[in-house]
């Protein structure tokens, strides 16, 4: 049986307006970083020709950006989850059930991790643009 907290969190999170907003904002930021990096590296195939060695450093920079964004997002996504139950006055209802405090926390944590995995998966197309140029394998 899946952790019921995880099941509920995923269901309600994906239904709320917050999930698509977060996803869009995240992708816009990452894509603009990508564009910026490419512009700085003057990756202009028409005037200078294409240097595949440059692509590797662009990839590394973009991956670094993603890491930075995720490091910023993880605390934002995980910190409020238990206190949120308290504020919403649902914590007592959860604590009287047979769920152990451990599985409540695991459920919450896995829900936040899934959300981050979703962001990473959604950013694959941005990375694949670099692969189009070649030079990274």
């Amino acid at each position: 049986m899946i952790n019921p907290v995880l099941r509920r969190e995923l269901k309600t999170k994906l239904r709320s307006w917050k999930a698509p907003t977060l996803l869009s904002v995240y992708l816009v930021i990452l894509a603009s970083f990508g564009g910026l990096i490419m512009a700085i590296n003057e990756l202009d195939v028409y005037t200078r020709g294409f240097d595949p060695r440059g692509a590797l450093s662009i990839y590394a920079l973009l991956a670094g950006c993603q890491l930075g964004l995720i490091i910023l997002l993880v605390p934002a996504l995980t910190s409020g989850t238990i206190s949120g139950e308290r504020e919403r006055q649902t914590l007592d209802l959860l604590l009287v059930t047979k769920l152990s405090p451990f599985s409540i926390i695991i459920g919450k944590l896995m829900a936040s991790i899934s959300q981050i995995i979703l962001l990473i998966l959604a950013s694959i197309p941005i990375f694949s643009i670099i692969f189009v140029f070649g030079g990274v394998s």
Partner: protein
Amino acid sequence: MLEIQNLVKKYGKFTAVDGLSLTINEGEIFGFVGPNGAGKTTTMKIIAGLLSPTSGKVLINGVDVTAHPRKLREKIGYMPDFFGVYDNLKVDEYMDFYAGTYNIPYSDREAIIDNLLELVDLSHKKDDYVDTLSRGMKQRLCLARSLVHDPDILILDEPASGLDPRARVEMKEVLKQLKTIGKTIIISSHILPELAELCTVIGIIDKGKIAAYGTVAQIMKQLTQKRMIKIKTMGNMEELITVLKEQPNIHDIFEKMDEVEIEFDGDEHQLANLLKNIIQRDIPIISFSEKEGNLEDIFMQITQGGESQND
């Protein structure tokens, strides 16, 4: 059987529950009545395993709640006085979530949920989002939620607050139904008359102590000693009064518009004898009933200042 032994709960120096002892038998509906801040919620939270007492014990079938809280969770259904619901969750999913927290297998859930929603009359709201329900509906949903694992003991903290009169009656009906299937129910309220007809036993709590305990009739008797009897006659009231004046155990006689009220301080047998005596004197009695003493007054009497409760 639920036993509360000498329960004490202190918040810092303040004593919220002060040496409370109670025994609640299986199948009983126990009404917990008291003014604001009397310690009802605190006691109920301790029974539900949410708070640990400063001292004292709560035993369920002889097992200590504070020592083995996990073991007893499946026996207890708890409905708090204030609670919230999740956003973006439908009524049946809400129930399904709590069914999951009690490890109920997926295959059993649909039947259980349908039954419970039927019981609290929310079947038609099954596909609505819980945060869009009205307060009374949320309250009923929370009651259904507390029953999802079929507990033996139900702890309901002011389940009727915020309900309209009709919903209160319906809530009472639901509780009566639960009583018939043998659940033990502990229910709190500020309003004594509200619990009077529902509960088998009532405990009035004030400042963390039990101020009165027993059936409604016992509590009334304990406090008033004298009972008020209303008598109506088709015939002459003067005649009735002269007969009454000859009878024993009558403390006082009041002549009202179309009836006579007497203050009676005898027991049930003496009361039966009184009626027999009047009828033997050929007075055409059309109504002879005990006046449901004013429970509100009694409640005020017990919970104010506290001089009146010391015998």
